């Protein structure tokens, strides 16, 4: 390979190498097919980096009352999803936006709502009409405004 090809390859690969741009508006995307399918059945499959592992453990323990919904799953699926979420949790990966979110969560806490994190609230001080948009429905509907949310991108849109 000539130097030129190497340089070209390096330049071309830049936009696709997430950690190279792993700034404040990025978290590692969900890659596990089961997590994508089951968590994504009713809402966006939120990236595990937004909550610490103990939050995900609590959530997987309480699926029968999942924010008022019975989201029960067979035990083998619960175990597989739990493993992925806890291994990629915010206090484990500590990458991108996760660092900021984790700063607001104290040691013993296991918060369940990403939308109540002070960092989320600080970045979402929006007029009421934005939240009332029929496409939005609820604050946890990230892709309604963040077109790259599924890929972990939460740049200001």
């Amino acid at each position, binding site marked *: 390979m000539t130097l030129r090809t190497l340089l070209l390859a390096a330049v071309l690969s830049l936009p696709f190498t997430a950690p190279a741009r792993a700034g404040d508006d990025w978290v590692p995307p969900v890659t596990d097919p089961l997590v994508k399918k089951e968590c994504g059945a009713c809402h966006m499959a939120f990236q595990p980096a937004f909550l610490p592992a103990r939050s995900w453990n609590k959530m997987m323990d309480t699926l029968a009352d999942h924010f008022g919904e019975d*989201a029960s799953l067979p035990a083998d699926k619960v175990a597989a999803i739990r493993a992925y979420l806890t291994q990629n949790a915010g206090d484990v990966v500590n990458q991108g936006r996760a660092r900021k979110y984790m700063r607001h969560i104290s040691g013993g806490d296991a918060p369940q709502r990403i939308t109540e994190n002070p960092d989320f609230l600080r970045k979402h001080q929006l007029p009421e009409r934005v939240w009332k948009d029929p496409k*939005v*429905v609820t604050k946890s509907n990230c892709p309604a405004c963040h077109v790259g949310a599924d890929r972990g991108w939460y740049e200001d849109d």
Partner: protein
Amino acid sequence: MIRPVILGVALLLAPNPAFAGDSRRDAIIADYAKADTGHAGFSAQRGETLFRTQWKGGDERTPSCTACHTDNPRQPGRNAKTGRPIDPVAVSVNAKRFTDAGEVEKQFTRDCKNVLGRECTAREKGDYITFMMGQ
């Protein structure tokens, strides 16, 4: 040789319920028929009534199936609680519907609880699928 291929492709693409048959869906229907005491056939009309009825016992945000699936099951819907888009339920526009028994049971369990405030009977499930097969 080209013409029969084109005809075949055209038939496959046509949104005709007659071509939306699927043995997995037939098996699901047959299972519900078996579980339906005094079974005397499923009814698309009863299924439509189930789909459009405003129930009282469930979550107030989802008083009917139409709360998420819209009045027209051939249209995409939207989860009334999360805002997530939902693919059409009508088999004519979404041939994957009602082809995975586990998924079908899981969805009925969740949705019946939310909309009707109780489990659906085997007859209601069979009626619902029968209605969607004609849509």
